[in-house]
């Protein structure tokens, strides 16, 4: 078990990062910190994916010097997935940030709990 962890340290780090991101997303009160947590979480998944696709000693799947055999390259699909995932997470981050700006303009705080209290006071 310990040996596995050591050889797959990339995955292990990814899992730890995922946990950190997840906790931040849920437990932080500050909206910006929540968004940072979310980004850490997403990035951890990409790291995990990239680590899955990486094969030690091989090159990125870009054909140079006319070498066409698959044995020379790493698996390109995870890299593709990571790219797609990054696009998704960027757009989601943008949306979250815009929401945060709206809330900040209205309530002049980034603390979500405080905002809730203020909304309750507003009534309606």
């Amino acid at each position, binding site marked *: 078990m310990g040996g596995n962890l050591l050889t797959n340290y990339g995955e292990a780090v990814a899992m730890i990062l*995922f946990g950190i*991101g*997840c906790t931040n*997303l*849920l437990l932080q009160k500050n*909206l910006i910190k*929540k968004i940072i947590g*979310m980004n850490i*979480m*997403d990035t951890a*998944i990409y790291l*995990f*994916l990239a680590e*899955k696709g990486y094969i030690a000693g091989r090159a990125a799947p870009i054909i140079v010097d006319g070498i066409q055999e698959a044995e020379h390259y790493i698996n390109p*699909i*995870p890299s593709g*997935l990571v790219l*797609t*995932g990054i696009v*998704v997470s960027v*757009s*989601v981050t943008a*949306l*979250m940030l815009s*929401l*945060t700006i*709206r*809330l900040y303009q*209205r*309530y002049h705080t980034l603390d*979500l709990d405080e*905002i*809730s209290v*203020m*909304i309750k006071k*507003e009534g*309606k």
Partner: protein
Amino acid sequence: MLDFVQNFPCFSIVSCMFAGIISSALKGKGAKILNLGVLLAVTVMSALTLGYVMDLGESYIYVMGTFSAPWGNELRVGVLEAAMALFFCVIMLLSLMGGQQKLQEEVEEGKQKLYYIMVDLLMSSLLALIYTNDMFTAYVFVEINTISACGLIMIRQWGRTIEAATRYMIMSLLGSGLLLMGLVFLYGLTGHLLMSNIHQGVVHIVEQGEYHIPLMVAIALMCTGLAIKSALFPFHSWLPDAYGYSTVASSAILSSLVSKGYIFLLIKIIYRVIGFDVIQQSKIINVLFVFGLAGMIMGSLSAIKESNIRRMIAFSSVAQIGYIYMGIGLGTEAGMTASVFHVLSHAVTKSMLFIAASGLLQASGDSTDFFDLTGAGFRNKTAGAAFTVGSLSMVGFPMFCGFTSKLLFARAAVDGSWKMLPALIVLAVSTLLNAIYFMKTVIRIYTPLREPAREKRFRKIGIGEQPMNFVALICFILLNVVLGLGAEPLVALLNNGLKMFA
């Protein structure tokens, strides 16, 4: 030889998406007309597809692009998918129709265009979730679904909705993060992204007896992720605000379609990706069962305590989602059929309830006070009738579709092993709790108001004033009764669909 009809699923996804893109260049009115046109077209196409697949008797695979099986991207269309697509389109149309007037009142003129763009994108992502046979595509569309749903919530710009949207986004992002993680695990285990290929890989792994724990972790991650996104108790905290304060069309769409899209994906994962046998053997299904039961009770209890009628209906959604997960958790074919049927019946009923409730509130000066609803059923007769029908259906009154789904659930439950007794007891208790708050409301809206001073504040709403609303509610009532009385063909169809689903 490719029949022309086979292209329709792909066309519907793409046309919805392009409608969204084109709408951004149009004016509000144009976007609305385009949206209506596309939805109608998709409805027709889904109906034709359904007819085609029923004739065919099995599902077919539609290859997207030029790469074939293990690498390319594909759609898979069977009876269940086509039926769901058709149904979602109809509900979407009716919800928009019923919520239109309110939308015009509550959303600024310039933003209405954005609303229809969001609806287009949402429809496209829902259709994609229904049809796709590729896990990563599913993930991408889950995110699109989340973003457009968030747009629907916050289109009505006031503090509550923005806060609700933020909370919704936080929980949803957590959910999609978990889903993606689970997906990556599965990819790591099997090396595939297409559902059918993953399934072969999973079967192989299980036969070899290898990687038991990672497989379970992957299943657990995906189930949890989708459970969070579809607001299974205890992850429902975002739901009441999001459904309770957004504009009514959004509430109707969110409660009846968005959460159902995720549930459909979960069913797909259970059947097609992991395989029903593997799921049955894992303990995860029992966890879903237990949380479903808890949701049935806790959702209803929260609804009883709630005095804002729309939040009350939102909490009732938590209970109904619990029913669906309970059915899935039974781990039998019959339970699954009941769940799928309940997805439909809840969609019909809940969107009707939201629209009717909004009509009643309108006739009560948009007050959130429960007692201001007194006599609202007389002031807005269509909404009163629709709310009554919806409540009766929710309570499981015979003749309406809620009763049929309860019957199906109970029938599924008596087949189960140790799950029989808890399922039946909780079903009975939760029905009773439903009866408490829904009947309370129905009686309230039909209790005459005796204070002329207050009566002056409220206005009556005739049928002529809101013709679209009237038509939508009547359609909903009819749909409800049809599903309640003539459910047999539909149940047979769903059964058939589930068989060819795997």
